[in-house]
């Protein structure tokens, strides 16, 4: 586990008196009072913990102070992670000067828990609309919400109270935003300074989902830009607190719906690590999971390539990419039984063994896919129009990668070799050989090249996994055996899976960046708090900065190069 050790912080202990270092196998935490948290974070940043990963709070309604806030930091050079914790009653100093990504995380914590941040430039709600009264992730917020609005369905209007059984449910619902609410929200986000404000989205083909961009335009040049999120907010973190560990698995599919298998894998690895059964998982299951999530990565990158080319006007590449993607979907469907929301992995292994002939199909795909890839590159990579649209657009420097908390291909495109498959190998990634492609300039073109090369590297991993799997006997187990069923019940459907007290932050390398799960467990079958670190959200937070002084035509290129998925941003 790549956690920093206690001895790394000896010098800090002298500078900060109240500092308490907590070292566990699953986590290394620094505890400090909230008055000195900024100083400590600053000192950590100078020490090399430059990459901001995540920040949120855990709610304990019956304690005082009520909220435990945590900040996750990463040292990319020494490959160490640390978590900083503090207690608060609802007010925290803002870290927006240290990390811009913190600004967005703080907005989310304000939205969900009502934490006030001192010194925050623009403390507005992240997902809910401005006039919303409640804080949904607080423990005293009921799961069904506060039913205050009378919103009958069409059937109820037509039939009145004559509806029977399941049709006749409550007519009172939690409030939904009205047009006035949305207008207030919009006004609060962006003060018009230039000529016209262009509402780009929430439903717009260029936004790849339901994001609402506001562009303040001076002619066609973007003077300033902001994003209104939350159109796809489903409260996944609240759901996680109320579902069993394996039940929550299906929600990870629906977060980043383009890379469901990778999200599945990240979640079960996190739970396995929390249970301490990572070594119990059979080798075969690990290889299968790795192979499947690499297939999913190619699948996801293919969708990115297709839509990206489509955004830049190259319509044909879109269909080429989707044709290959269709083949991949068929392979995945044949193995797992599902195409989009897959839920193939389980805590302790995978749901079922590979069907007969699966490896042959994958081998055939691996053999012919590089040819296709080369053809597309012939059309795009040296195309003069493509180069002019891409090179020098949206340059992200290395410092910006840390400042904005960028991960995944976006970080690698800027030359930061941050790849959790290498830094913190989970499943079979430690046993296979592959390289991490990195870019030089950090512009859109570099991110494009990085993703293309990643597809090739994924093929390499798949090839090695197939070789390893071919050597294994058909009867090899694909699900973990519990060493002591009385102490730890490990059923495939996850019912009765009890997780001991503890906490963990574990993350997987998704196609769109680091997908991290911070699980706080107080024992039992359900987690107490799950904070999901969505790669897409933090990758998106650099967008307003990149868009400044660019034209709208670049908006699509930039957005597609960051490749966000709204299901993961909003959760």
């Amino acid at each position: 586990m790549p956690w920093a050790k206690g001895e790394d912080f000896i010098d800090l202990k002298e500078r900060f008196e109240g500092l308490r270092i907590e070292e566990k196998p699953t986590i290394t935490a620094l505890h400090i009072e909230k008055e000195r948290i900024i100083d400590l974070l600053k000192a950590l940043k100078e020490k090399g913990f430059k990459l901001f990963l995540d920040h949120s709070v855990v709610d304990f309604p019956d304690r005082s102070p009520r909220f435990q806030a945590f900040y996750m930091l990463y040292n990319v050079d020494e490959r160490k992670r640390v978590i900083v914790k503090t207690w608060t009653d609802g007010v925290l100093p803002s870290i927006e000067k240290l990390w811009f990504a913190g600004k967005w995380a703080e907005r989310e914590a304000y939205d969900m828990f009502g934490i006030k941040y001192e010194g925050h430039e623009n403390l507005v709600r992240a997902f809910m609309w401005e006039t919303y009264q409640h804080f949904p992730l607080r423990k005293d917020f009921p799961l069904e919400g506060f039913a205050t609005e009378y919103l009958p369905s069409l059937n109820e209007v037509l039939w009145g109270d004559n509806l029977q059984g399941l049709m006749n449910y409550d007519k009172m619902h939690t409030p939904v935003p009205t047009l006035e609410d949305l207008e207030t929200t919009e006004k609060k986000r962006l003060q018009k300074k230039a000529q016209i404000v262009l509402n780009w989205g929430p439903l717009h083909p260029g936004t790849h989902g339901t994001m609402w961009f506001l562009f303040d335009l001076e002619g066609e040049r973007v003077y300033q830009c902001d994003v209104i999120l939350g159109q796809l907010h489903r409260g996944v973190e609240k759901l996680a607190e109320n579902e069993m560990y394996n039940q929550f698995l299906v929600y990870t599919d629906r977060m980043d719906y383009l890379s469901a298998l990778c999200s599945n894998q990240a979640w079960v690895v996190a739970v396995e690590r929390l249970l301490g059964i990572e070594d119990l998982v059979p080798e075969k299951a690990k290889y299968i999971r790795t192979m499947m999530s690499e297939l999913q990565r190619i699948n996801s990158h293919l969708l990115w390539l297709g839509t990206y080319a489509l955004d830049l006007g190259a319509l044909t590449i879109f269909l080429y990419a989707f044709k290959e993607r269709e083949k991949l979907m068929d392979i995945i469907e044949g193995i797992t039984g599902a195409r989009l929301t897959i839920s193939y992995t389980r805590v302790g292994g995978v749901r079922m063994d590979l069907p007969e002939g699966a490896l042959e199909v994958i081998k055939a795909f691996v053999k012919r896919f590089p040819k296709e890839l080369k053809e597309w590159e012939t059309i795009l990579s040296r195309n003069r129009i493509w180069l002019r649209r891409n090179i020098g657009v949206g340059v992200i420097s290395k410092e910006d990668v840390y400042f904005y908390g960028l991960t995944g291909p976006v970080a690698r495109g800027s030359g930061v070799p941050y790849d959790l498959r290498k830094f913190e190998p989970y499943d079979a990634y430690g046993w296979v050989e592959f390289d991490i492609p990195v870019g030089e300039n950090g512009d859109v073109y570099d991110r494009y090249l990085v993703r293309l090369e990643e597809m090739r590297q994924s093929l390499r991993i798949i090839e090695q996994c197939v070789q390893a799997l071919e050597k294994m006997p058909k009867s090899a187990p694909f699900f973990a055996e519990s060493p002591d069923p009385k102490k730890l019940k490990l059923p495939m459907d996850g019912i009765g899976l009890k997780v001991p007290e503890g906490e963990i932050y574990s993350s997987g390398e998704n196609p769109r960046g680091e997908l991290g799960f911070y699980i706080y467990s107080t024992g039992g079958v359900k987690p107490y708090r799950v904070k999901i670190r969505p790669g897409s959200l933090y990758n998106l937070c650099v967008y307003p900065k990149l868009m400044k002084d660019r034209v709208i035509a670049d908006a699509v290129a930039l957005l597609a190069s960051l490749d966000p998925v709204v299901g993961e941003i909003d959760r």
Partner: protein
Amino acid sequence: MEGLLAWLVITLIKIVVILAIVLGVGAYLTLVERKVAAHIQRRPGPMVVGWHGLLQPLADGLKLLTKEDLFPRYGNRFLYNLALVMALVPATLVFAVVPFGPEFEAFGIKVKPILTDVNIGLLLVFALGSMAVFSIALAGWASNSKYALIGSMRKAGIIVSYEVVITFAVMGPIILAGTLSTYDIVQNQIDQKLWYVWLQPIAFVVYMFAMLAETGRVPFDVQEAEAELVTGFTVEYGGMKFGLFPLVEWYIEVLSLSAIAVVLFFGGWSPINIPFLGFVDPLFFLGPLSPFVWFVLKVSLLFLFVLWLHWTLPRYRIDQITETAWKVMLPLTFVNLVLTAVFAPLIWR
């Protein structure tokens, strides 16, 4: 009196024939485009309505005609409808000066297969071409939508830039031919035994660029730009009103400008040319029909070339397009103009 009547009847017949051909072909080019695009993208394209989708344009037309006529709130209804007229009429009028073939005799009357052989034919073409900017600006303005407005402003910027370029590009052939009449330009090429493309390759390339830009084809389709502007200035139009804009821009204008390109650079209805030596006609067996077939063949090839580009290339950004126009294309046409002026006496001998 009788002469006048005959002229009137012949002109009317010509108008009907040309209109029918242009609009009918324009509709069926949608099918051609869809089929070409489909085969470039490795799929069959329309296959259900009729044999290999042959009736698809009719079905599409029927669908578009039966759609509800929507009008954006706070838009300007007069300008909104005027934009349609301004788009269709100038684009179709260009065909008035396109010569489809050599003069022939029918029932003892000499007929030129050109509606009006005015001696300023080319001027008319480019005057009508720049009318397109009004239709687009009006459409964008009258729709009362920001997307439409941005799309139309982009298009206006492009047309203003490329009108200059295209006018200077055709100077070369005009100098060589010594006339502005489209019919005479072709006749001169046949007399001089020379397609002007051999002497004017620069002008031809620039002309093609300008043609793509004016008709809004890839790589210059910034005014549509599905991804960022959701089809730009046509976003508030529905039904056949919406269908008319691509019909005009993508088919009729491309056809008319291809026809002009054939007239200027490829000797109109003449068969394959060997510079300064003569013409070789592999289609001699068609007899008097051969020139017409050659003309149609050349125009179709140019049209297919445009389609090929459209379904292969990505799209430029607006500033890059205008930059190319003013910084690359315009100087090139100037160089071409000077070179032509120096070499023209050789052609005239």
